[in-house]
């Protein structure tokens, strides 16, 4: 018989209670998995968008870290092009607009000759031919969502546009978007000659050191502006930060409930076994072994709760992704790291929830515990 056999047999004595505890923990862990996955996926989808466009650096106003920073003059483009190793600068304006009866949709305005268009794969139709043309291209997910195809009319704010193309992008966030010429969006949103992002493409073969050097130069020469790499711009985005913060806050509440559940179960278990703990102490078990036994029990419950929670969380991610608000815009980040983190959190819950009952159980005086019935 191993030490773990004793732990397992103790858990199996109260099967229903053990199962309910596992269920409680699994719900907490499922919340962690699902919410974190969506938050990480949100971050990743933005990062993907910049990577897919071939953007090396994104220039925005320092105070503008939300996904939709306040617009600034597009004249900065010309100054950026004078910097060493800068090959192209694509100015873009982005806004969130409620289109017809669909949920809020991302609308991009891109300069027509910019490299930003290069990564889009047109499934049908064409891209806008000129700045004055009141046409848009829409992503495949947006086409489904808005139920529009080539030639369809689409109402954006007070203007009516015609869909001239449907595209696919490697960036999920773009697939759910509507894109038009920069001039048209500037007009629609009343932001003449303004952009809120400048996507900078460097000469091929630029090293990370050169990118870093350019970033410093931009910060020094352009007061009030900052330059981010694709990953950083996603990380520093306040909306993404808020989403991550919300996911952690919600997860934390779920975890606290889980920890209270484990503590309650283990305390009940200790109270029920005071007499037995007295026997173990009387026949020579060290107090540290009693602590270990109770901690292992709570960790075993948490570990099993973690495994079940990961499975439920996985299913929850798949379900959440089908909802209209999320579908096609964010893909939950599912990775071994996330699942590993969830199991570690579950084990942490076990330690946290089991520690007090374990210490309390181990401190019982053997004679008093033996008398307890």
């Amino acid at each position, binding site marked *: *018989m*191993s*030490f773990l*056999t*004793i732990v397992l*047999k*103790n858990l*199996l*004595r109260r099967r229903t209670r053990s199962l309910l505890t596992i269920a409680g923990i699994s719900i907490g862990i499922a919340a962690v998995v699902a919410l974190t996955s969506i938050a990480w996926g949100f971050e990743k989808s933005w990062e993907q968008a910049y990577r897919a466009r071939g953007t090396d650096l994104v220039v925005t106003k320092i105070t503008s870290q939300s996904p939709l920073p306040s617009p600034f003059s597009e004249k900065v483009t010309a100054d950026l092009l004078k910097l060493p190793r800068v090959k192209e600068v694509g100015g873009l304006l982005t806004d969130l607009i409620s289109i017809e009866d669909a949920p809020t949709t991302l609308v991009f305005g891109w300069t027509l000759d910019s490299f930003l268009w290069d990564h889009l794969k047109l499934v049908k139709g064409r891209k806008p031919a000129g700045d004055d043309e009141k046409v848009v291209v829409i992503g495949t997910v947006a086409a489904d969502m808005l139920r529009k195809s080539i030639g369809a009319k689409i109402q954006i704010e007070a203007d009516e546009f015609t869909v001239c193309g449907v595209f696919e992008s490697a960036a999920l966030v773009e697939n759910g978007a509507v894109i038009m010429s920069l001039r048209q969006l500037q007009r629609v949103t009343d932001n003449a000659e303004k952009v809120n992002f400048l996507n900078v493409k460097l000469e091929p073969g630029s090293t990370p050191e050169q990118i870093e050097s350019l970033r410093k130069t931009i910060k020094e020469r352009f007061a009030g502006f900052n330059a981010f790499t694709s990953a950083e711009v996603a990380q520093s985005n306040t909306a993404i930060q808020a989403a991550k913060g919300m996911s952690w806050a919600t997860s934390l509440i779920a975890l606290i409930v889980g920890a209270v559940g484990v503590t309650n179960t283990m305390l009940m278990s200790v109270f029920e076994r005071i*007499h*037995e703990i007295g*026997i*173990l*102490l*009387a*026949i*020579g*078990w*060290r*107090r540290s*072994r009693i602590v270990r036994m109770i901690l292992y029990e709570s960790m075993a419950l948490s570990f099993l709760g973690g495994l079940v929670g990961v499975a439920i969380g996985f299913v929850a991610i798949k379900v959440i992704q089908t909802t209209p608000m999320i579908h096609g815009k964010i893909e939950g980040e599912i990775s071994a790291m996330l699942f590993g983190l969830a199991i570690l959190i579950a084990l942490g819950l076990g330690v946290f929830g089991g520690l007090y009952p374990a210490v309390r159980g181990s401190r019982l*005086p*053997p*004679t008093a515990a*033996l008398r307890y019935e």
Partner: protein
Amino acid sequence: MSAVLIEVRDVQRSFDEGRVQALRGADFTIGEGEFAAVVGPSGCGKSTLLQLLGALDEPSEGEIFFRGKSLLEIRDLCRFRAQTIGFVFQSFHLLPTLTALENVQIPMFEMAWSGAERRRRATELLKSVGLGERLHHVPPKMSGGERQRVAIARSLANEPQLLLADEPTGNLDSANAKRVMEHLQSIHQQRGMTMVVVTHDWNIANFADRVIRMLDGRVISDTRT
């Protein structure tokens, strides 16, 4: 005269802030290899004395020495109990979810023995008390006599130097009581193990070589048979 294993020096034990005097002063020694019985009516302090001898409790006054060393000086009393003392209780005190074989292995976790070694020793001990066929039975499926024999096997698990039995036949019928006492006597004779049995029953006390009588928390006589 054998070497002194335990010396009880003016030991007193009170509870409830001194309002209850369970032990009012005990002075005696127990030699290596002795089989002593502590006899007295219920409430005379004999179980309290046994708990003090087994380092389960501490005296309010006085000291107990084991091989000349005060129990108060022993820092790790759990380890001391595990390696030195075997207990047999009136209510058996077995773990109900574990089999007989597993119950006997419980104290062995404190020894540096492998799982296979623990299992081998536990099997041997259970066979020695006539339970070779009941290894995988759990206590609720065993008779009182069988449970007490499992408890005896468990008390011998770590080859203790002292075996303390608190009313070991208190929950048994006379036939089983006799059988349990014969087992204890046989262990004493074969292993030369020091034993102290607490009982209110003179028939049980008569199995011992020495009888210490107690009344109202005091030793009133100490005779060798």
